[in-house]
């Protein structure tokens, strides 16, 4: 264990707290959290511009959006009162491995004054109202599709991307699903089928959308030393990184660029791989536009060229960039938070256990998850023993 110790790798350099003899504070919610963070940063001689990591027991993403921070590291581990010790533990490990440099963590709770504060006092819930109820819900935004439709409309207007090009992603993903006996949908489809399916929220059609299914998955991660003695060939984590930009779609800085433009290059650099090294891309396809943005932001093609890049069918069986070989969220399964299945399929392919859909070369895979409404991206590069 000594070679992997955190000892001395990270330091607490600023702190703040608030309490009162009355038992009540004048502020609450995000205002109180922002004041605490400002005070702790000032104590450290730092500002919000220095912050690239955010921890919060309920809503690291929402807190970061409120602060105007676009973090490379988020942790919303929630285990009760010891959550903040775990946040320090995880953040120290993140800093030690270069995932981030400056992490802020905060806690604010006002159960006593909440008693005479209308509409507040939901103990254990994120502080303050969800701003989406004020600034998005009244406009009738249908989530999640509405957010992705806005992104697609912007990409089309800015880069000339077409519905046909987006549809090609659904077509090629279905070709993979046809090879997976557990896939929800296995019948082949055409671009015309996608375009003829009902328009749900323009410019996205029904067949541009992922499924709603039951589903479950799990993983076990151990040290490299332990891995060598276990039953199956190890699949190693070669690189990993995060990129967060917002929580609400209306706060996304650029609707054509996700946090994958940060997490992708960082994970690839950590892994020491180039795009040509990637045998399999598992890229979260909640909608066709989601997968297209991943291809661009991960650097498989230039920004704006995703439509032309996918048009020749290279993502499907026999193509030069196998993507979502299980059939994806579009055709295999999608229970809501699909990222688990990206990892499971990547491991199966790298072990050579994928049956009819097994790819020929299988040394390096990228699992790229998308959370929220294009809000927080996580890239994991995986490799077999010979890639170490």
């Amino acid at each position, binding site marked *: 264990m000594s070679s992997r110790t955190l000892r001395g790798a990270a330091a607490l350099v600023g702190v703040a707290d608030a309490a009162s003899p009355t038992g009540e504070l004048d502020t609450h919610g995000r205002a109180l959290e922002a*004041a605490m963070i400002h005070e702790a940063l000032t104590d450290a001689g730092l500002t919000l511009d220095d912050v690239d990591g955010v921890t919060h027991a309920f809503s690291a993403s929402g807190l970061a959006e409120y602060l105007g921070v676009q973090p490379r590291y988020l942790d919303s581990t929630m285990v009760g009162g010891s959550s903040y010790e775990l946040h320090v533990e995880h953040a120290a490990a993140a800093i030690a491995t270069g995932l981030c440099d400056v992490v802020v963590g905060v806690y604010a709770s006002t159960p006593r004054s909440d008693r005479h504060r209308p509409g507040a006092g939901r103990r254990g819930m994120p502080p303050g109202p969800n701003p989406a109820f004020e*600034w998005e819900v009244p406009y009738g935004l249908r989530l999640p599709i509405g957010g992705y439709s806005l992104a697609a409309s912007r990409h089309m207007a800015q880069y000339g991307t077409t519905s046909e090009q987006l549809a090609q992603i659904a077509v090629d993903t279905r070709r993979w699903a046809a090879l997976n006996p557990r896939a929800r949908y296995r019948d082949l489809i055409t671009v015309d089928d996608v375009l003829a399916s009902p328009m749900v929220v323009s410019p996205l059609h029904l067949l541009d959308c992922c499924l709603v299914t039951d589903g479950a998955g799990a993983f076990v991660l151990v040290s490299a030393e332990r891995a060598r003695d276990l039953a199956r060939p190890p699949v190693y984590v070669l690189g990993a990184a995060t990129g967060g930009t917002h929580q609400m779609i*209306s706060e996304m800085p650029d609707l054509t660029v996700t946090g994958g433009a940060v997490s992708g290059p960082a994970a690839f650099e950590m892994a020491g791989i180039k795009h040509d090294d990637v045998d399999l891309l598992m890229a979260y396809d909640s909608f066709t536009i989601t997968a297209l943005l991943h291809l661009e932001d991960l650097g498989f093609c230039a920004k704006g060229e995703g439509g032309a890049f996918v048009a020749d069918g290279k993502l499907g069986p026999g193509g030069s960039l196998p993507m979502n070989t299980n059939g994806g969220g579009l055709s295999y399964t999608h229970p809501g938070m699909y990222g688990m299945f990206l990892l499971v399929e990547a491991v199966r392919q790298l072990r050579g256990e994928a049956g009819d859909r097994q790819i020929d070369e299988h040394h390096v895979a990228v699992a790229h998850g998308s959370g929220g409404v294009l809000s927080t991206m996580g890239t994991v590069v995986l490799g077999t023993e010979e890639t170490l």
Partner: protein
Amino acid sequence: MSDAAPAPTMIEPPVTEASAPFWDATREQRFVLPWSTATGRAVWFPRDVDPAAPDQPFEWREARGEGVVYAASVHHKVGPGRDPDDGPYVVALVELPEGVRMMTNIVGCPPDDVAVGMPVRLVWQPLSDGRNLPQFTPA
């Protein structure tokens, strides 16, 4: 005067401490934005405090009520609170000359006529309690 369409069914926005100045102004159909005295920039959405300077209040300034469509989606299937017959309607993001971008509806034209880059101007949708919801229509 409002020149918006008849009120759709909707989940009306709550008022928070942070946004009260915004919603109060809408009662007089004034469209105001919070400006940070620390950064000199308009802030959207309204926050309880300015994270860059938590002890300095925002300055509320009237906005021009103009904008340009940044992204637009026609909702054939409606969102929460909307009657299914309300569709299709346009949910859009509009960039304001004050330097912020907000979600809104584009009303007063056929939904499919709304395009990214289209100039739009403010209209008011009355809410049940005397407040008004800002929407936009082609300029």
